[in-house]
């Protein structure tokens, strides 16, 4: 549906013209920086040939793809029962279950890693509990530091994403269609396969692809739990750039990694479009109903326990351990607030907290500006490719690639390049929020404002910006949370003398001042979830 040519058209042309410099500065420049070293030495083909001839290069992609696929499958298996519960059932604790959706975004992977060692480690809570209950001599669980350790950490970390996205779709499937199928003689299984499954598949597929992408780009968890042997391309890129000082190899990793991710993203964009198509069909949500039989209740209770033990356990372990104070570095401990006191009395911690706040606000501001500018510019893009893939393309660019790119462009990273990296990782979520919030009514309101004599800029400020405001604000909170929890960009391209809470946490955990690390993690987790819930950033995800 094309609008008649109104004066506002020119405003859009101007805004579209803004699209390219914005994307150029924040995406193309660091990308060019990341790929340029490939042309050094004997040229791009020779460098790529050398990379592909290296067993470690292909091994790394094999490992990266394998673990990401297995992790996404696990997230799907754990997430789908939850999606059913969220989409169809009414039960106490439902809000809590749906609130878990923020975890993959706002709990930094470092905290998850810390929680996994404390909880699933050989001397962890779960192993000690199992040894006590079944009077065993040796710890029964030993899966960390292997392929499966990485997969379990990823799968459990990301299942809420599947649960939330597929749950949304599930509640949109009309019950009367299912009832009709049953009346026409289809059995329960057939009804599920022919009616229900096609309804949730696109959403589940989109969630699967998103999880796959997030696990493919996983950095910290693989760095800590990867076991001996090669790491994911993300980790190997970091090692090649920082320790082997082999920039052409690092660039080969960056290039191939981004290409693989772009393919996955294309699949995501296609699935996502099918999901939004369905969403408008089924604007009416089906009312959730309570459980009917004891079997259903039992199933739900088992599922709840699984989530509690396997997923919330490690996070609770972090909070619990933060209250244990140890006198010597590796000695026994007592309960107390000493770790928190130690943190607050350290000037570097206070400085790191200030930096986190400043960097988070800066990144979120940049992300909001990029998101808003792109939402205006993309409104009348005629190419469906631009409209669907371009705004999401940062999902295919990891923060390690971007940080590496910036550091080869500017020499050394600065807080501003950090903010630029984090803003690019966060803006797709803001953009999606704004695009969702601005329906076609926006056009008519803006045109009306113009017809009534408002200037073009006035229309942007008085009509478009206020309409986008709620989505912008939750996106802002979301971007802040992402920035505050992100340590990857800083680990991959350190800024000398500049620390944030997430980096501090990485260093504390790295030097195994576990209890202080747990205290820092608890504070960071609380602060981030607070920001998130204040603005109900969940809307930014769905």
């Amino acid at each position: 549906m094309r609008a008649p040519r109104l004066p506002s058209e020119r405003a859009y042309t101007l805004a579209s013209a803004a699209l390219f410099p914005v994307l150029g500065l924040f995406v193309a420049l660091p990308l060019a920086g990341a790929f340029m070293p490939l042309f050094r030495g004997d040229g791009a083909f020779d460098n790529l040939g050398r990379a592909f001839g290296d067993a470690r290069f292909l091994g790394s992609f094999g490992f990266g793809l394998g673990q990401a696929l297995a992790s996404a499958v696990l997230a799907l298996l754990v997430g789908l029962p939850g999606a059913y519960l969220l989409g169809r059932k009414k039960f106490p604790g439902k809000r809590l279950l749906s609130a878990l959706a923020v975890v993959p975004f706002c709990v930094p992977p470092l905290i998850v890693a810390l929680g996994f060692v404390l909880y699933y480690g050989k001397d962890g809570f779960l192993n000690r509990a199992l040894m006590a209950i079944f009077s065993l001599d040796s710890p029964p669980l030993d899966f960390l530091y292997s392929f499966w350790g990485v997969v379990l950490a990823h799968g459990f970390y990301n299942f809420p994403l599947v649960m939330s996205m597929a749950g949304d779709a599930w509640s949109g499937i009309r019950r009367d269609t299912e009832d009709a199928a049953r009346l026409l003689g289809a059995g329960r299984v057939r009804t599920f396969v022919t009616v229900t499954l096609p309804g949730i598949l696109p959403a589940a597929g989109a969630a699967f692809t998103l999880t796959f992408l997030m696990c493919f780009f996983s950095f910290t968890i693989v760095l800590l739990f990867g076991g001996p042997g090669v790491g994911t391309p993300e980790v190997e890129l970091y090692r090649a750039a920082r320790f082997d000082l082999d920039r052409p190899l690092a660039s080969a990793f960056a290039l191939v990694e981004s290409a693989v991710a772009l393919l996955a993203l294309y699949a995501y964009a296609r699935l996502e479009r099918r999901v939004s198509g369905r969403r408008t069909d089924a604007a009416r949500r089906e009312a959730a109903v309570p459980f009917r039989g004891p079997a259903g209740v039992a199933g739900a209770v088992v599922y709840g326990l699984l989530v509690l033990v396997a997923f919330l356990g490690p996070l609770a372990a972090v909070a619990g351990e933060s209250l244990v104070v140890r006198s010597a570095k590796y000695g026994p401990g007592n309960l107390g607030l000493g770790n928190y006191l130690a943190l607050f009395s350290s000037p570097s911690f206070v400085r790191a907290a200030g930096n986190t706040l400043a960097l988070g606000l800066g990144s979120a501001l940049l992300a909001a500006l990029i998101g808003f500018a792109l939402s205006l510019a993309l409104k009348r893009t005629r190419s469906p490719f631009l409209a669907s893939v371009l705004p999401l393309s940062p999902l295919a660019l990891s923060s390690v690639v971007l940080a590496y790119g910036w550091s080869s462009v500017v020499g050394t990273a600065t807080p501003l390049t950090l903010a630029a990296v984090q803003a690019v990782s966060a803006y797709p979520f803001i953009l999606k929020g704004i695009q969702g919030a601005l329906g076609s009514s926006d056009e008519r309101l803006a045109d009306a404002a113009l017809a009534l004599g408002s200037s073009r800029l006035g229309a942007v400020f008085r009509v478009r910006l206020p309409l986008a405001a709620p989505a912008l604000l939750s996106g802002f909170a979301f971007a802040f949370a992402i920035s505050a929890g992100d340590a990857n960009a800083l680990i991959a391209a350190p800024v000398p003398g500049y620390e944030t809470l997430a980096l501090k946490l990485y260093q504390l955990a790295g030097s195994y001042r576990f209890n202080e690390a747990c205290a820092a993690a608890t504070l960071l987790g609380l602060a981030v979830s607070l920001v998130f819930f204040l603005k109900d950033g969940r809307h930014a995800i769905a």
Partner: protein
Amino acid sequence: MHARSTFNFNRPFIAILITCLLSAVVLMGTLSCLSCDAPDQEGALVVYVYDSFASEWGPGPIVEEAFEKATGLELELVAVGDGAQALARAIDEKARPKADVLLGVDNHLLPKAVSADIFMPYRPENAALVPSDLVLDDQWRVTPFDWGSFAIIWDSERLAEPPRTLEDLTKPEYERSLILMDPRTSTPGYGFLAWTKAVYGDDMPDYWQRLKPSILTLSPGWDTGYGLFTKGEAPLVISYTTSPAYHAEYETAGRYQALIFPEGHPVQIEGAGILRGTSRPQAAKAFIDFMLSPEFQSAIPLSNWMYPIVADTVLPASFEHAPKPTTNLLVDPAVLEGAERSALDALN
């Protein structure tokens, strides 16, 4: 009416405006913070060190205070990961150095540092205090400050029968029992590699292949690996013969023991050098001199858990729990060329 409606912005809009303004202010703050971090505007001498050196339990706090007291110069120790990471960082920044001194280059990493030509030679005034067999570099690009021997540490409460040789480590009974460090990022990690190279020579990659099932993980740095070990994740870890002294000093002696292998133990000599392009060469030289002073040397045993380089420094009683290797291995760094890669390739 019309005039009023012009200013009738609704509340979310104002909220956005305020947020934007605030963030702009904060961004400016970030920028100015960055410039105040730049070393040449501040007087402090910047020394890159490895993490455990700078930590609260390490020599860092003692050294900082003593150096400032002795020389009146301000000292800032910046932790940049494990030893090999610190070196990589200094090489990375060679064109525009952000530090004046790099501390933590050991005998195994020295060739890398020398071929990157990052150090300025300086023979400290009190160089004679360094025993001749511990001198790292005859051109004094790097001045040694402590030394130790690598050894496997055994947790006697979690493992009944300790390995007796490097070869024993490959036995199936030690499956997933050994924590090593990544040789690319950590000096003990590289030290273990040097050890296997010295003992196995050209068969070294073969040994790593046999060792693979025993390795639980390659941690990025010594701190992480040793932390996992004391957390009970594995009963064996690569560390130093002096590590049991730590436990004897602060906990109880006996549980964690350094295993002495008949093949011999590689010696690690740690040093520091002045980075080329420093804007404070005088202060940097004062720091190198200070490393050999009694204040610095006496802090080493109980905070860095190594042997002081100056031989007549008094050792604390807990060092009796550090066993002496029967054979010391000195590994020629030249044979380590490419060893890192072949060992890591063997792990795939």
